[in-house]
């Protein structure tokens, strides 16, 4: 037996033993977010929003000392499952919160809810979980994926646009997005363009749009792709002729990069930094003070997710063992959401208001999305009736 071989083997065992060490007592929340790779900025907003709420509550949720274990899902579903299992088995968390992307949610929802641990979504709201796949342990502090797209579809329909071009990345969320738009828009769809995920340059697509001469363009182009599309749309001169309707494309994660190129572009959301509620004013001010940048949707939802957990634990007196009690308390949604109107539907997704927002300039010169008009009031999603929970 070589000495080095022995050394390697014991070192391996040592690693295993060390990382297998057990943990302590207080309320534990696992926060799953995307913190590396090109989309990390979304996860950063969500994490910062969540942690801000915990900080404002003096590090306590429901009056209990709280430990937040932040994990990076790397936007890889298998890595996410791995890390979530760590949260459940090793850290023995009472709640899992967060999750930016639907494909990650698709992978982690089952292990979390099957473990009878509450999963509070800070963003992703796939239709399966809103519908037939709903779970008593799943709560959404955000929205159902289709809703923001429906806002734009409704707006385009109301506004009387006769002909639109739709453009989205060629993946499930992109297809769902266009389907959501078309649920309310009944005019002519001149072209549906699917682009490659992660595409950098849209000149070819912009040329097609210009050739089609639509009344408006609707797009779902998250992250850096959206930044590129917005800038190039402006550069191609289309911004002056054709309204740009979008979801998850122009928001406070991308506006620092697009800057004034996005001025006048539309989006649909349940929240904007200038939304006029007392809770929101306080939140945005505190967030900007703490982190030095303007919060996006994801930050607001992360913030609300923490507040939701806080409200439920207050109701149970800080106890987490009685799952039925916690669930009942969560369902009440007894907290003041930065979004104002907020209550849970039967599928435990929110019923809330949705707005058309438009990129504008603040008095201090920074750009942000601003509420333009309310498109839906007390709006629930289309999948709730497929959910068998009552």
């Amino acid at each position, binding site marked *: 037996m070589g000495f080095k071989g022995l050394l390697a083997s014991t070192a391996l065992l040592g690693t295993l033993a060390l990382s297998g060490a057990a943990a302590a007592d207080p309320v534990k929340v696992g926060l799953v977010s995307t913190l590396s790779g090109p989309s990390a900025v979304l996860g950063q907003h969500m994490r910062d929003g969540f942690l801000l709420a915990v900080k404002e509550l003096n590090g306590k949720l429901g009056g209990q000392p709280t430990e937040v274990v932040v994990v990076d899902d790397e936007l890889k579903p298998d890595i996410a499952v791995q890390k979530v299992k760590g949260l459940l088995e090793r850290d023995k968390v009472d709640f899992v919160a967060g999750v930016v992307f639907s494909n990650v949610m698709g992978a982690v929802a*089952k292990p979390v809810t099957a473990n009878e641990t509450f999963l509070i979504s800070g963003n992703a709201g796939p239709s399966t979980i809103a519908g037939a796949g709903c779970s008593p342990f799943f709560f959404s502090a955000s929205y159902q994926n289709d809703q923001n797209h429906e806002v734009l579809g409704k707006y385009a329909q109301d506004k009387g646009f006769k002909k639109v071009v739709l453009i989205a990345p060629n993946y499930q969320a992109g297809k769902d997005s266009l389907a959501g738009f078309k649920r309310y828009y009944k005019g002519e769809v001149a072209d549906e363009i699917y682009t490659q*995920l992660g595409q950098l340059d849209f000149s070819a697509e912009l040329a097609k749009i210009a050739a089609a001469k639509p009344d408006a363009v609707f797009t779902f182009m998250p992250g850096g792709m959206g930044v590129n599309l917005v800038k190039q749309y402006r550069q191609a001169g289309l911004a002056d002729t054709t309204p740009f309707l979008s979801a998850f494309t122009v928001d406070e994660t991308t506006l620092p990069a697009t800057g004034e190129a996005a001025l006048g572009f539309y989006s649909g959301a349940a929240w904007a930094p200038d939304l006029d509620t007392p809770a929101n004013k306080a939140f945005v001010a505190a967030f900007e003070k703490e982190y030095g940048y303007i919060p996006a949707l994801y930050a607001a939802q992360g913030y609300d997710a923490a507040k939701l957990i806080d409200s439920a634990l207050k109701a149970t007196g800080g106890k987490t063992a009685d799952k039925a009690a916690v669930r009942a308390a969560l369902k009440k949604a007894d907290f003041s959401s930065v979004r104002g109107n907020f209550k849970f539907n039967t599928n435990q997704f929110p019923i809330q208001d949705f707005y058309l927002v438009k990129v504008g300039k603040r008095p201090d010169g920074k750009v942000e999305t601003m509420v333009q008009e309310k498109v839906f009031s007390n709006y629930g999603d289309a999948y709730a009736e497929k959910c068998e929970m009552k």
Partner: protein
Amino acid sequence: MRRFLLAFVLFAALAAVPAFADTAMLTLVARAMIFALAATSLGFILGQGGLVSFGHAATMGIGAYAVGILMEEGGRDALVSFPVSMAAAGLFALVTGAISLRTRGVYFIMITLAFGQMAFFVTQSLSAYGGDDGLTLAARSTVAGARWLKDPKTFHYVVLGLLALTVLVSTMLARSPFGRVLAAGRDNERRLRALGVDPYAYRLVAYVIAGAFAGLAGALYANLTEFVSPAYLSWHRSAEFIVMVVAGGPGSALGPVLGALGVVLLEDGLAHLTEHWRIIFGPLLVLLVLARGGIATLLGGRRDG
């Protein structure tokens, strides 16, 4: 002999893991072992045949999708789905290998990447099976109707057993006349041809075998995560496999195993230390190269030596 003892100690250590590990730890180790299985199959063609496949994740992903799609269509049993996974991945390797093996060196690396990317985009467009969002498995596969794989410890031992089998097969292949021809083609193809042997068929068979075992790794991985996703086929994953194999030392049967275990466990350990773990892990890889040779070369000789 020394290598045999090293293998014994390594597998004994892995066999002892369930005695003290929690489920999360078991999941981590199972993932490491499944990657080790895939890395071993890549290590075989890379070390023995000099064939650097940059599309290995695709064969593994196809194996995973075979399990996922079968389950969606009602085929739950591992006795059916695992062989189908291996066959599907092997078939993919056969078709793409037959074309790729016309090229050499970096051209081979890139053409295998091309086929890997094609498979990736195909899975991404499989709308019926979740497309880019991936496909959640209803449950883990049954074995002859029994729900063995559901238990993390049983699953651990199944993976461990299949990993041991893979290492054994790879070692036997390396020592067989077949393996020698493969290695001869790697070191001196001209001389081999003059002996009357065209290495093409040998390479293709090796490529298919490696693909089939990667498919097996994929089948296991689908069961571990109870989820399949196009991300399993991405070129990033293929690059990770190459890193594991090269870090561990492609020349020996245990090198890729050590490389995979080392990379997965180290990544996990560093990630617990800091969110910016890559800033440590990157230079470690550079140092590993500068310090010459992989872990296994430090520990013992090369397989064909």
